[in-house]
């Protein structure tokens, strides 16, 4: 059985505390992989704000399904997906995933899989505000193509 935790929240999260707590003290876990997404400034330093919109209800369902799919494909002891919404500024942490497994390769593959699916199967939309205006971030064809890896 995989312990799955899904959290969708507006407030900041404490990445360090989440990492410290995740799979803590488990003796059946040999490997933990974490990923954290951060609001990155544009090369021309023009990003003032990133706003994340989501679909309450569907978001939690979609994330739970992605986590359960990962737990079916790999032998995982724990999975965490945490994603924020609302306004964020450059340098702020947007989201994280964490995977725990007996073995390294499974923890890595599962974290990579979670990110690929989260990116184009969970109902989040990013809007960027720069000095010159606001626009929605376009999905990349490569994001959709990445799903065929799995």
């Amino acid at each position, binding site marked *: 059985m995989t312990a799955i935790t899904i959290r969708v929240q507006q407030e900041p999260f404490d990445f360090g505390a989440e990492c410290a707590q995740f799979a803590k003290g488990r003796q059946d876990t040999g490997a933990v992989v974490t990923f954290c997404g951060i609001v990155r400034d544009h090369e021309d330093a023009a990003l003032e704000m990133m706003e994340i*919109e989501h*679909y309450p209800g569907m978001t939690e369902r*979609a994330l739970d399904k992605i986590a359960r799919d990962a737990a079916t494909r790999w032998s995982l002891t724990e999975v965490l997906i945490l*994603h924020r919404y609302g306004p964020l500024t450059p340098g702020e942490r947007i989201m994280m995933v964490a995977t725990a497994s007996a073995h390294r390769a499974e923890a890595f593959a599962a974290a990579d899989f979670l990110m690929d699916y989260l*990116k*184009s199967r969970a*109902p*989040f939309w990013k809007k960027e505000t720069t000095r010159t205006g606001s626009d*929605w971030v376009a999905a990349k064809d490569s994001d959709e193509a990445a799903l065929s890896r799995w």
Partner: protein
Amino acid sequence: MKLDILYFAWLRERIGLPRETVETDAPTVAALVEELRAREERYALAFSDLAAVRVAIDQELRDFDASLEGAREIAFFPPMTGG
């Protein structure tokens, strides 16, 4: 039937509201989209390129030819950009 329709991201902005309730007999998502397009210019604009629109029925991603039978909540939105 009565359907709750939700719009997100630029679809919400173009249509000008986040949700509405419609009375419709459309059998499929595609038919519903045709009805909406016929309503007003802002709908026609929002749904002008369906390749850029995704749809969920009762919070599950579906295709445009999916049946609306038994559906309660339909959501339209652009391709997702989480992570």
